[in-house]
């Protein structure tokens, strides 16, 4: 096979969804060490922006900034130096709903702020402003393959440019008449720092390989945990197979669909980490993220 393999390391991992408001909670639920929380949290509270700004940003931006920040903290890398890959299947559908509804009734009254927040790269833009990063970012979508495509793009950048890369994936529930056109019923954000090399304790090796075959021939890994059930109803939920593998210390193999006729095979290395650079900074006191070494 001509296609090359991409060896990279996951140095920090973060997750936010209303029922799993941190990777630490998600990890415990995956490992059946705790029950799924009954209460849903309404909105992530990111400490990256000042409180006034924080209230004004859309939920997509809030969740993206929250997981991006936590992943960077867990990785110990300088967040202002990391190139970033932002991936979102549908972008900010509540803003699309607002834009389309307003254009149909009173187009001249479109809010300029809503308009500039409607661009697919809004979260990425706010991130680079918030962390003062001149490093490049991209913002991509690949429909049901968005997470796998974003992970592949991040790994390619990490290897080609020999730099750790921040990968952030998020999607939000659709509202209004366009809701039936989307499969998203709640907010979800996932972020990880992908490095070409790592000496960090707890970093997990991933070896990515493209399979030039039908996902029917290369079975896509099904999710199996109670935690995965809590994020079902989001376009990125299929990524949970990888998160389940990362929650366990043993080596594993995961396959994600990459297109109708290709797949991304991922070998997940064993967790050799002892320390895990635990990060307990959180303005809520509940959002504890942990380096994936445990």
């Amino acid at each position, binding site marked *: 096979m001509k296609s090359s393999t991409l060896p990279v390391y996951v140095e920090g991992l973060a997750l936010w969804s209303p029922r799993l408001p941190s990777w630490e909670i998600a990890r415990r639920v995956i490992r059946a060490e705790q029950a799924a929380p009954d209460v849903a949290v309404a909105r992530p509270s990111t400490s990256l922006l000042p409180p006034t700004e924080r209230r004004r940003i859309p939920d997509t931006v809030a969740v993206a900034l929250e997981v991006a920040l936590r992943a960077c903290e867990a990785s110990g890398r300088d967040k202002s130096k990391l190139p970033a890959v932002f991936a979102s299947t549908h972008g900010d559908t509540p803003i699309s709903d607002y834009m389309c509804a307003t*254009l149909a009734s009173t187009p001249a009254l479109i809010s300029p702020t809503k*308009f500039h927040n*409607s661009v*697919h790269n809004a979260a990425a833009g706010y991130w*680079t402003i918030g962390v003062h990063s001149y490093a*490049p970012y991209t913002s991509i979508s690949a*429909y049901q393959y*968005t997470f796998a495509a974003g992970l592949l793009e991040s790994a390619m950048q990490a290897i*080609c440019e020999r730099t750790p890369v921040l990968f952030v994936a998020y999607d939000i529930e659709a509202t209004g008449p366009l809701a039936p056109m989307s499969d998203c019923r709640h907010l979800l954000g996932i972020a990880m720092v992908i490095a070409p090399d790592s000496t960090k304790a707890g970093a997990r090796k991933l070896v990515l390989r493209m399979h030039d075959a039908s996902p029917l021939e290369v079975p896509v890994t099904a999710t199996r945990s109670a935690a995965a059930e809590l994020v079902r109803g989001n376009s990125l939920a299929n990524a949970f197979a990888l998160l389940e593998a990362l929650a366990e210390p043993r080596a594993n193999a995961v396959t994600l669909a990459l297109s109708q006729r290709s797949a991304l095979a991922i070998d997940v290395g064993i967790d050799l980490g002892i320390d895990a650079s635990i990060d307990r900074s959180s303005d809520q006191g509940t959002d504890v993220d942990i380096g994936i070494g445990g």
Partner: protein
Amino acid sequence: MDELPLQPVRITAFAVCSAAGDGRAETLACLRGRRSGLTFNDFGPAPLPTWIGRVSGLEAQPLPAQFSQWDCRNNRLAWRGLNTDGFIEAVVKARDRHGAHRIAVVVGTSTSSIGASEEAYRRLTPDGQYPEDLRRPIIHTPHSLGDFVQSALGLSGVSMTVATACSSSAKVFAQAERLLRMSLADAVLVGGVDSLCDSVLYGFNSLELISPERCRPFDRERRGINIGEAAGFALLEREADHGAWLLGCGESSDAHHMSTPHPEGLGARLAVENALRSARLDLCEIDYINLHGTATRKNDEVEARVVGEMFPTTTFASSTKGWTGHTLGAAGIVEAAISLLALEEGFVPGTLNSESLDEMCGPQIQRENAERPVKYALSFSFGFGGSNCVIALGRQDAKVAA
């Protein structure tokens, strides 16, 4: 370990379709004849008083029946672009050569087919549902474009849609080159498509960035942008014996503001430096720059300053938005195509509609067209969210650094 250096790749085919012409020959004739493609805005039910770069005939050109699930203005424009300049034939040959799974698709857009969602909201059923003919989820999501292009050409490698506003279809070159460098594809179809829709017309209007007259890039009296629509595509291959070169890409972020460029053009400078470094070119080797030149007060001021301070006076620089309008997510590929035409033809377009250049402009920025050989060209693209991308292109016979 050092970074894996960028490897120059061949651009073995390209196609462009905008208000300034259907295909390369028409585009070139429009540029040489200094005929603007801009017309007074007649788009939508209540057109704003501005000028637009409209591709005519799309309303009467539905997609072929086998692609009807993707039918909408943006994908019609994509199909029109693919059918221009023998591009589909070139892709089919590459598919036979490499295999469908070895050709990736990386295309850029800012709004993709949001025009279809806008239409659905105008025609909601009495109980608030989408009209039946528009209940097709794929056209109400950004990857509508990438999914259509991949499916229409029977390709099965990686396919993604890049949406970084007005730098989208410049960044596709950087992502495609990495796919080739990592051997995850043997060829990459890159491109960009954006079509007229109310979101951008009224959106830019809300930011007071829409010009009531024909846009005048770098003019002292410039009053803002004209929205245009366009489709453009290019085929990049690692191993080929013909075609101009993609020599380098430079990407950066402004870290400044969502809709205003960095006042000193810091991100733009970084993108230029990164592009030249990856292309192993010196500033003084650049013969032509196709500028972003949107004709907003701010963009042109900052860009003129960057060019004036960085480049020698012999570099010829211009904005071609006076011909095409600002085609947003398609601007990168349209202007890459114009730069490729400049390399092929030894012809550089000036800046249309501008009568009196801003005093910020150095001698690099030119109004008049010129016949002069172009061996190396840069194309600048800067987007909302402070996303910058500069690509470096070389003529077919340009010596490539080993």
